[in-house]
């Protein structure tokens, strides 16, 4: 299971398009909108909104498309012909994408904090981790549902 998880993690880290939407796009929006609207309250809300945007992009859309691709290409069918259990594979996919999602939102949060200098204390920073993890898990579940219900990429996208 660890080998599967590590390999899927490596694959997720090489997914440049998804990483662009999870990290680069939020950072561009962070700098662009933060410069256009220099209000501290707005910037704080902006960072929080972009954290959700990044998590949603990678965990929800990314997982949805990935699961649909795996389904249509026969990953789950092939797994049934091996001793590897489908729930273990789902756990490996979820674990790999969760790590990348959390890492990407931490990058955005850290850059937002460093650039705009919010007075966040360590307690709120620590509390943010389980909240982000729970949010990521929710988006991931929705992604799995979308990936299993959609027959085509356009259906998943809708």
């Amino acid at each position, binding site marked *: 299971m660890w080998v599967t998880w590590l*390999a899927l993690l490596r694959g997720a880290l090489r997914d440049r398009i998804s990483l662009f939407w999870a990290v680069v796009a939020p950072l561009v929006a962070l700098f662009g909108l933060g410069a256009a609207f220099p209000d501290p309250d707005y910037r704080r809300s902006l960072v929080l909104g972009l954290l959700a945007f990044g998590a949603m992009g990678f965990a929800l859309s990314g997982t949805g498309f990935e699961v649909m691709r*795996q389904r249509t290409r026969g990953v789950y069918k092939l797994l049934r012909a091996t*001793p590897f259990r489908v729930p273990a594979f789902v756990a490996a996919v979820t674990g790999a994408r969760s790590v990348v999602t959390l890492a990407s939102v931490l990058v955005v949060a850290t850059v937002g904090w460093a650039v705009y200098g919010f007075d966040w204390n360590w307690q709120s920073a620590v509390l943010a981790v389980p909240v982000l993890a729970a949010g990521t898990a929710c988006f991931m579940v929705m992604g799995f549902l979308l990936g299993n219900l959609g027959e085509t990429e356009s259906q998943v996208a809708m």
Partner: protein
Amino acid sequence: MNALISARGLTKRYAGRPVVNGIDLDVFAGEVLAVIGPNGAGKSTTLEMLLGLRIPDAGTVTYWTADPRREIGVQLQNTPFFPGLTAAENLQVFASFYGLRLSDARLRELLSQCRLEEVANVEAVRLSGGQQKRLAIAAALVHNPKVVFLDEPTAALDPLARHEIRNVVRRIHQAGTTVVFTSHDMEEVEKLAERVIIIAAGAVVASGTPGALTAAFGVANLEELYLKLIPEVVGRCG
């Protein structure tokens, strides 16, 4: 001969219509067995029941081993490679499905067996069609199975790529693995198979060695046999 896999009276219906209708089939140790027949004949459904991917409505499948999933390799028509991972990394993922981690030596052996040494570090989804098929076969061999099922391994490939796949299949067979494959290419079946099972309208209509079959039906080759036999059976079944 020892049958590694024996199917008796295999039946599968979809929406009440029988797709596979009481098929008896044996896979013997060390042979290269070709399962051929027209589209919709029930070949894939039969193979999927042999692999445990579909539960038969009637009939039984018995295996030489208690845990066939650990001892059978499968190459599906569309093998799902993982994006972002190289050919070698994909083989490690497939090995992990069997609880294995490939040593460098075993990885090199597999890549060499399937003539993939030069593309080991190329992203799998960027390989050519022939290379992807060879990688799919290598993926089916990661756990050193006793039997390997290849579902149309040369479909949609150019003649050179088909030739390379045939050589790979010969090497697998020479290494002692039992090979079961499906194909629509009768010339390929004649070149590779030691035994042929022809399925049409959900039933086995003929089986035997290519030589015995052509002699029994008074035809020059398997293609002629196919063209003689299949329209008769399909026409009879409506």
